[in-house]
């Protein structure tokens, strides 16, 4: 990756040119040793030398998460791993490296320092939300260096220094969200506790750590941040030093951001800053947002993002909503081209300079919708598309709801929704139920019923401290 200062100040033309150089390097130097794409492009008779500009990428087929999924063949993800170049390399390459001896010496040196770009370093996994199984992704030493750089850029963007004490409460799994934060705090020299999240330490210990370490920064997924803030009174814990919550791993809509700010204010924190990161596993790093609402800043020297129509695959114009498609520009190990993320950027992508931080990075705007959160529902008369992403944002905006959980059920006359909720103490329970029902019915015509449950019961149903991120909806209909 390039120097941060240089990239953030690049003109859009210079950035485009940098991306094209990187794309050509990836396609011409790296992809020939990529088992899956080398075979695919040969089969489809695609000439990579003709792809010079980012716009030419449309000549390449999309890659879907299912293409990498190890459901049937355990070894399938290896097909996406760049094979190490042969020891000698081509005569030209050998010459460049100072002949065979020079090559060997360089290889020895890189091995000794652990910087061989093709040397497998860590195996991480995707979150596994859409594919049937989490997909292993190979990170080489080169990718780990990039991951550190991206974490460093995010911290710099947010103005974090090593003086901040950080509690990393991202759920532990071999996933970039946890590890990017670990590497960043370690490199920077921040005092940090890597908790592994609620399913490892539980809310009380995490809150106590926030209190005892007088931490200013909490890193976690959105639902858990909300849960922690609501648990403060129960555990009789105060966290006045907390200033910033960094969210990732799950969509943090603006309605949730506002809810969390209010939660922080009620908890008496010294500041109420929320920062968001979009972690897309296959992109091999997180894209930070300088401040809520300004969009996720894509590292243009690391990945190329396209926005396409989720139905037709056609490219969308600037700031038009569409599915996020990612191409690795500067990666080793597992490499993907034109991967369909399954995430819908409701505000599309913009190349205008950021009005907040002034950087020229491409920015993914709006809330992120998960395509697998759009359900087909049918009542007695017709089919209905239920966009749970929107319903979720509406429910997050309701101040009366403490916790909630939605089930899709098969009723005698068609599909139905059932909302389990716990209201905020002291507020009118019936009013909360009425409002929640109304909000859901803005998104669907199928009948909605409500039932009040204890917060503990709902937390259990959500799997708040059992799963990587909590689940807010469950499709209980018998599978067809």
């Amino acid at each position, binding site marked *: 990756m390039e120097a941060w200062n240089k990239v953030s100040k690049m003109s859009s033309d210079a950035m485009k040119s940098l991306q094209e150089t990187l794309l050509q390097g990836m396609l011409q130097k790296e992809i020939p040793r990529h088992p899956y794409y080398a075979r695919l492009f040969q089969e489809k008779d695609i000439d990579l030398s003709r792809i010079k500009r980012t716009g030419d990428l449309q000549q390449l087929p999309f890659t879907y998460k299912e293409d990498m999924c190890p459901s049937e063949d*355990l070894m399938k*993800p290896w097909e996406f791993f760049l094979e190490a170049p042969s020891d000698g390399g081509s005569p030209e390459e050998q010459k460049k490296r100072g002949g065979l001896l020079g090559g060997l010496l360089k290889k020895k040196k890189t091995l000794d320092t652990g910087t061989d770009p093709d040397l497998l370093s860590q195996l991480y*996994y995707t979150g596994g939300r859409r594919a049937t*199984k989490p997909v292993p992704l190979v990170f080489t030493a080169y990718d780990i260096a990039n991951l550190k750089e991206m974490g460093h850029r995010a911290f710099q963007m947010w103005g974090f220094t090593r003086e901040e004490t950080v509690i990393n409460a991202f759920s532990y*799994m*071999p996933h970039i969200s946890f590890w990017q934060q670990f590497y960043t705090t370690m490199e920077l020299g921040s*005092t940090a506790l890597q908790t*592994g999240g609620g399913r490892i330490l539980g809310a009380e210990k995490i809150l106590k750590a926030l209190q005892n370490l007088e931490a200013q920064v909490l890193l976690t997924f959105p639902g858990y941040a909300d849960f922690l803030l609501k648990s403060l009174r129960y555990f009789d814990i105060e966290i006045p030093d907390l200033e910033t919550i960094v969210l990732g791993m799950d969509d943090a809509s603006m309605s949730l951001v506002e809810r969390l700010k209010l939660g922080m204010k009620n908890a008496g924190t010294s500041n109420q800053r929320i920062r968001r990161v979009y972690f897309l596993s296959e992109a091999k790093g997180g894209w930070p947002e300088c401040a809520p609402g300004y969009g996720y800043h894509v590292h243009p020297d690391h990945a190329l993002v396209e926005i396409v129509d989720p139905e037709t695959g056609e490219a969308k114009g600037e700031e038009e909503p569409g599915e996020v498609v990612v191409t690795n520009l500067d990666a080793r190990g597992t490499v993907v081209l034109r991967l369909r993320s399954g995430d819908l950027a409701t505000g599309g992508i913009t190349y205008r300079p950021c009005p907040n931080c002034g950087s020229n990075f491409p920015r993914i705007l709006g809330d992120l919708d998960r395509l697998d959160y759009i359900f087909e529902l049918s009542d007695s008369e017709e089919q209905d598309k239920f966009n749970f992403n929107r319903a979720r944002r509406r429910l997050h905006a309701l101040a009366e709801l403490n916790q909630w959980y939605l089930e899709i059920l098969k009723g005698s006359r068609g599909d139905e929704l059932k909302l389990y909720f716990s209201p905020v103490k002291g507020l009118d329970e019936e009013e909360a139920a009425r409002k929640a029902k109304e909000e859901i019915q803005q998104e669907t015509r199928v009948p909605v019923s409500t039932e009040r449950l204890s917060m503990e019961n709902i937390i259990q149903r959500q799997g708040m401290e059992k799963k990587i991120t909590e689940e807010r909806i469950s499709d209980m209909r018998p599978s067809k």
Partner: protein
Amino acid sequence: MEDWKKISQMSFKEMRDMQNRKLRAFIANQIYLYSPRYSEKLRELGVDPVKVKGVDDLKHLPFTYKEDIAPTDDEPKRHKDFVVRPDEEITEKYSHLSQLSPYGGKAAVEDKKYDYKPVHIHFTTGRTAQPTPFVYSKRDVENIKEGGYRLLDVFTIGRGDVILNAFPFAPHLAFWQTFFAAEKMGLPALNSGGGKVMGTNNLLDAVEFLRPSVLVFIPGYAYYFLREAAKQGRDFSPVQKVLFGGERVPPGLKEKVRGLLIQLGAEDPLCLATYGMTEARTAWGECPSHATSYGYHTYPDLEIFETVDPETGENVGEGEEGELVYTALDWRGTCVLRYRTGDVAKEGIIYEPCPNCGRSLPRISSNLQRKSEYKEFDLTKVKGTLVNLNNFFPLMMGHQDIIEWQVEIRKRNEDPYDLDEIYLYVAPREGLDQEKFTSELKQRILRDTEVSLTGIIFKSVPELVDQLGMETEVKEKRVLDNRPDS
């Protein structure tokens, strides 16, 4: 820290001289000045730090016990007093020259941050007291990395090996020591977080996908995991070594694990144990051998081990049974001196060069008994007798006919004032004569643990696996004390 190869070949005298030199400097320049707890204690006892000339003078220093460090409700931040940290007044007094020096300035501040600023934290497991944080500065992180490198080197693990770290994720030493070891050696690794994080089936897939040569496990989970692998006919042929940590590994369990690995296609696999403790902030390993245990190879430039009589606290001689006492050397962050580990080394510490690998490092006998659990946790008054439940571990783990087990202590009639009862849940291998097995097991338990069981309850393997929390707990629950509070 010193060069690993160099210290591995030092004579006893050279090693002691190095330790004496380091200890003198450490006590005078770090502990006495910057450790609030020890500074106060030494002043209180009238110990002149300059007079601590070497290892032999350690006996003039007081012991430190777990309960001295662990936070309590009254003193939740007590552990902070053990963190070596220059305060502003002392820095002003002693460091002004370096700060004013033309070569100092910003670099001097950076050095101080490197040395003292905490960047990483582990906790004790909290079985016997509240979880206690132990902090690492960046300098300490280099030490834990070096400790990890040495650990792998003792195990003859190096370039070409691939590691699957299946320790449960937690801010605990075991997981992180493995991570830092692989990182320092530049070895490919999957830091899985264990079955609780990834699920056993995904972890089994990961072994076949990554084809690791080294598996790193908690013993109880390893046995369960490999049984599942065998049941599913998995291919573990690349596995050469299994490293255990987190709890003791009885020889019988090593044999069971080795048998399973061979069944899974591994050729002549080695099962190796580690010894580590949060308080020491690193771990040590035994050098590879099938038949004999040559003891845990320690790092004399990073710590001093003594062995003492657990009752009197008097030092015992080389090779004699005694409780291990740990003193940090050349660390920063949370440092303890003369820490009573509660672990009794049956054959003590040996300073002779290792007959297996030739390294002349102090070696701790592999035959360790956890006195701390015995004293504070598992020393249980059952039927009016003091019982060491630790003795169940080697017996049950190594028993060839037992697949899973759990001990439960209850009160008769659930009455807190009634007699204690002790039940053993057991899932034996198939086809056993249950009556004969029960009678033999009761006798062996009576002989080895002096416990007369109230009853043995047979369970299926899946039932017991579930009851142990094998997939849901950070560490499986082998002993349940379900007696109501009186």
